[in-house]
């Protein structure tokens, strides 16, 4: 899921300083799991904005905030509330915010969150990054563990010289991913996969902005 974190209130207040009334939109998917876009987060945001003298005309949690058409349909029943707001504050990821930008052509749309990474939830609201969406997955050759993401340098051919006692040069609290990959391939009797020199990644596979049409004719 997409991991997001609420911006410091001061930063948000500075961004919205030219407007006085707002309609809030959360998201029931990732942002709810992160606690940045669920009902409780919206209620809390309303309270904090009102304390700062701002007006909140309403709010709701969209089913899937990044789904433009669906969100547009869901919004219909809140027409009065968002019409009476000068601007929108979106409490989901950067993609959800831009879906709202597309829907609200004539109103300012602000994001309340910083969008961080594609994450796994390991415990309640504890997340870590395991895939960085590189566009050409190589983990069939690395024991199913992604070095592109788990190695800060994204190395494809084994540990760097900075690995120390199995720990990563960059963060000594973390295991070097290449030691993890080695151990896993060893357990699976597939160390042969580690003798092959991996080719440079084709960064042409991930030119921004990406787009995909998944429809089958």
């Amino acid at each position, binding site marked *: 899921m997409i991991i997001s974190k609420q911006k410091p209130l001061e930063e948000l207040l500075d961004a919205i300083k030219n407007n006085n009334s707002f309609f809030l939109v959360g998201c029931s998917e990732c942002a709810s799991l992160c606690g940045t876009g669920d009902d409780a987060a919206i209620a809390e945001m309303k309270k904090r904005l009102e304390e700062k003298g701002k007006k909140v005309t309403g709010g709701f949690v969209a089913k899937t905030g990044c789904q433009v058409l669906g969100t547009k349909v869901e919004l219909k029943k809140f027409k009065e509330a968002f019409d009476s707001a000068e601007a929108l504050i979106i409490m989901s990821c950067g993609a959800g915010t831009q879906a709202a930008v597309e829907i609200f052509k004539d109103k300012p749309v602000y994001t309340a969150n910083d969008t961080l990474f594609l994450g796994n939830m390991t415990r309640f609201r504890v997340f870590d990054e395991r895939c960085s969406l590189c566009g050409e997955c190589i983990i069939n050759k690395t024991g199913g563990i992604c070095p592109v993401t788990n190695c*800060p*340098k*994204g*190395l*494809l*051919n*084994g*540990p*760097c*010289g*900075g*690995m*120390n*006692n*199995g720990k990563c*040069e*960059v963060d000594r609290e973390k295991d*070097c991913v*290449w*030691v993890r*990959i*080695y151990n896993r391939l*060893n357990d699976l009797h597939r*160390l042969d996969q*580690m*003798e092959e*020199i*991996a*080719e*440079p990644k084709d*960064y042409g596979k991930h030119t921004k902005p990406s787009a995909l049409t998944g429809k089958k004719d």
Partner: protein
Amino acid sequence: MRKFREALEAGEFLVTAECGPPKGTDLKEMLKHAKELFGKVHALNATDNQSSVMRVSSLAICKLLLDMGHDPIFQLTCRDRNRLALQSDILGAHVLGIRNVLCLTGDYVTAGDHKGAKPVFDIESAQLLQVVNSLNNGKDMAGNELKGSTDMFPGATVTPEAKPIEPQLMKFRKKVKAGARFFQTQAIYDVENFKGFMKEARKYNVKILAGIVVLKSAGMATFINNNVPGITVPQNLIDELKAAGKEKALSAGLDIAARTIRAVRDICDGAHIMAIGMEDKVPEILKRAGI
């Protein structure tokens, strides 16, 4: 003194040292050290933004060393350059007359003084070795023909004291396969362990220069352990430096370096002395090591 590659091919015991480019344009001290080492080393490495601290470019320093009559080893990391920049710097090194290149991945940017820099790592050490070999054969990474190929002698690094060692040895084999002709190792402090590594290394047709990192005090050793990726100074050496007392710690450090060189002399092909700020002490170390 013979050039690095000739001496290597002739099987001489090789001595190389490091030249740390300064932070700023004042080269006096660095050039003075380089001069003192003239005739005492087969080659001098010019480090590349060492520990991710921004300094004069290694390529520029290599050219100055070359003009002084040294045989420079161009250290090239993948941290600051994408594949275009790496290849064009290798071509650039060749046209300037530089003939040795040490292919490195590079420390992560947060180790240095520009922590917010964008880390590149478009490719990495083993792949860079392949690139050098490809340029030597007249083709760039994309397979395009070059008008005039390079003649660069590629080297790499290895960390014989890495724990666990198996993944590191796997990478070492990849670097050999990718065309590395010589290795300048990370710091060696444990000679017994190094013997074990050499047993593996001797299976391949590559030359190994043992890395010697000079210590000047117990404090410096502790600093290295906490801040320099990939080097661990063992406690017994820290104790030895401590026991020597403030005045004699440096001399004890030079002894440790000389002693290590003597101990590895018969088991590997050379020594690579990383003096980290004590470049002026390299001749003394060589004297004490009997070289």
